[in-house]
């Protein structure tokens, strides 16, 4: 045992570091933190504010019924064709990407779990989520546009589905992992086959998270522009049918984001206004969906 009989080193003789200075430093950082946070919120509010203020004026009936204007002199025109185009392109992308991602997430959560293949897939999914969306567009161009010689809405959908896929898979996996094992075990213990337990019991339990994940994934790609730049391009006309130059598979298809990009780049104020209107629609859809799913499905969840 050590000899404690020598209380030789007491602290009575030591020089104190200034408590006041330490507290001042602490206070400074706290103030900076609040300032920083307010700044972050202010920026977000500012962006939303600008879009709303500049865009809401362009929203009228014509906006939703008339196609993209081509004549600078007229005051007519809307973004109806672009909205429809986005809905179609995103819809098909979701039809491809959501189920594939969903089952991929099931694979990661239910089957692979800790196996080498699953771990690799998980890591690849994380990495693919970081691929710049313009590269995805270049990829879709190379496989679906160049070989056939023309742009198409379908190529755009494929590009968007590519982006959706890992997002949906990882979200599904995370959500399913939150479902306690007991639920799986009790389902299996009743003699139900694996697929029934997974789809009927586990996914049912996790349906809030799954719907949230799917909705957010869809809304996120709906706002993407870069993947469509070389795939669906854009068009001032209504999409007409499936094949042929104006069709979904046959040629460029109008979409909201690319149209906004084009209109904003013109020097004509009335077209820029239309672009702001489009931006307004996008903000409403994106933020609205975010708020909606969080309020409905994640009430009480801490952030």
């Amino acid at each position: 045992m050590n000899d404690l009989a020598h209380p030789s080193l007491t602290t009575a003789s030591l020089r104190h570091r200034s408590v006041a200075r330490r507290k001042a430093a602490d206070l400074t950082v706290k103030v900076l933190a609040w300032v920083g946070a307010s700044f972050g919120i202010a920026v977000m509010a500012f962006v939303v504010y600008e879009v709303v203020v500049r865009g809401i004026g362009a929203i009228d009936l014509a906006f939703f019924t008339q196609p993209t204007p081509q004549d600078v002199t007229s005051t007519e025109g809307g973004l109806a064709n672009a909205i429809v185009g986005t809905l179609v392109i995103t819809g098909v992308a979701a039809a491809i990407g959501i189920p594939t991602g969903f089952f991929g997430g099931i694979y990661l959560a239910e089957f692979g779990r800790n196996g080498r293949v699953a771990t690799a897939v998980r890591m690849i999914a994380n990495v693919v989520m970081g691929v710049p969306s313009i590269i995805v567009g270049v990829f879709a161009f190379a496989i679906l546009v160049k070989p056939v010689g023309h742009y198409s809405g379908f190529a755009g959908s494929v590009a968007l589905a590519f982006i959706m896929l890992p997002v949906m898979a990882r979200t599904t996996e995370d959500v399913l992992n939150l479902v306690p094992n007991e639920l799986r075990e009790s389902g299996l213990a009743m003699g139900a086959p694996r697929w029934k337990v997974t789809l009927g019991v586990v996914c049912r339990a996790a349906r809030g998270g799954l719907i949230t994940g799917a909705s957010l994934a869809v809304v996120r790609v709906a706002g993407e522009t870069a993947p469509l730049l070389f795939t669906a391009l854009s068009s001032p006309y209504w999409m007409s049918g499936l094949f042929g130059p104006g069709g979904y598979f046959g040629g460029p298809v109008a979409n909201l984001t690319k149209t906004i990009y084009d209109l904003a780049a013109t020097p004509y104020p009335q077209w820029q206004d239309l672009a702001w209107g489009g931006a307004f629609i996008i903000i409403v859809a994106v933020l609205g969906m975010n708020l909606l799913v969080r309020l409905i499905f994640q009430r009480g969840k801490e952030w």
Partner: protein
Amino acid sequence: MVGSTLTDRALTPSPGAVAPPRLEVPEARRSVDQDFAALTSQIAVRHLDFFYGKEQALFDNSIEIKRHRVTAVIGPSGCGKSTHIRTYNRIFNLYRDQRASGEIVMDGVNILSPQTDQLDLRRRIGMIFQKPSPFPMTVFENVAYGLRQHYKLSRAELADRVEDALKRAAIWDEAKHKLGEPGTALSGGQQQRLCIARAIAVEPEVLLMDEPCSAIDPVATAKIEELILDLKSNYTIVLVTHNMQQAARVSDFTAFFFQGHIVEFGPTTQIFSNPTQRKTEEYITGRFG
């Protein structure tokens, strides 16, 4: 002395004053070898209530912690023993919905009052936690943490004091070749002694130990119990433990908590051989908890 609303209220402090207390101790609780009233109180707790939000966890706790003695706090799980000692260094202030009312007097000052400087209070009252929690830095830096924080020291002085603290915590021989390694490189029992060294490096007056041995093996536990007996000549120690044998081995005074009340408090020998309260006796004999 002591008590809660369940027992007698022999204590009548002079109203408003915060001078060191003088106590009325009923005859039956006075032990032959410890003159309770004659010992100085390091910490005097008076009518302490504690709340987690709306829920009250401690009820009218009053107790005297005697200087340079080991006071054990025992009781079944959830009885409030950890909650109680966590009021002494006001660590509960970290949590928004936890609050305490009443008085805790140390050196003539009520440390629960808003004017008390928490930083200095926590230098004077050290805390050892149930789970050994070395900081994410080297062994040396762990022990030096408090010294660097509160004092201006040259490198040589710092090294001396670190060595001294490690010696006083009975871990110098095991640690001296590992000063540059992360604190987590030590074993569980060693880490706990490292935490003790870290705490005593700044020469606190009081050491609060919240079940310090419950996460470590019996051999290491024995070493720490030995250390506690050594340390008490220089420090006042309050030891929360769920292990009654440990309390009986190591402490001078024992307080028995039950559902947020202090049921009984007195010299350890008396509590364990001749408790006056039925609940105490039931707990000691293992009938519950």
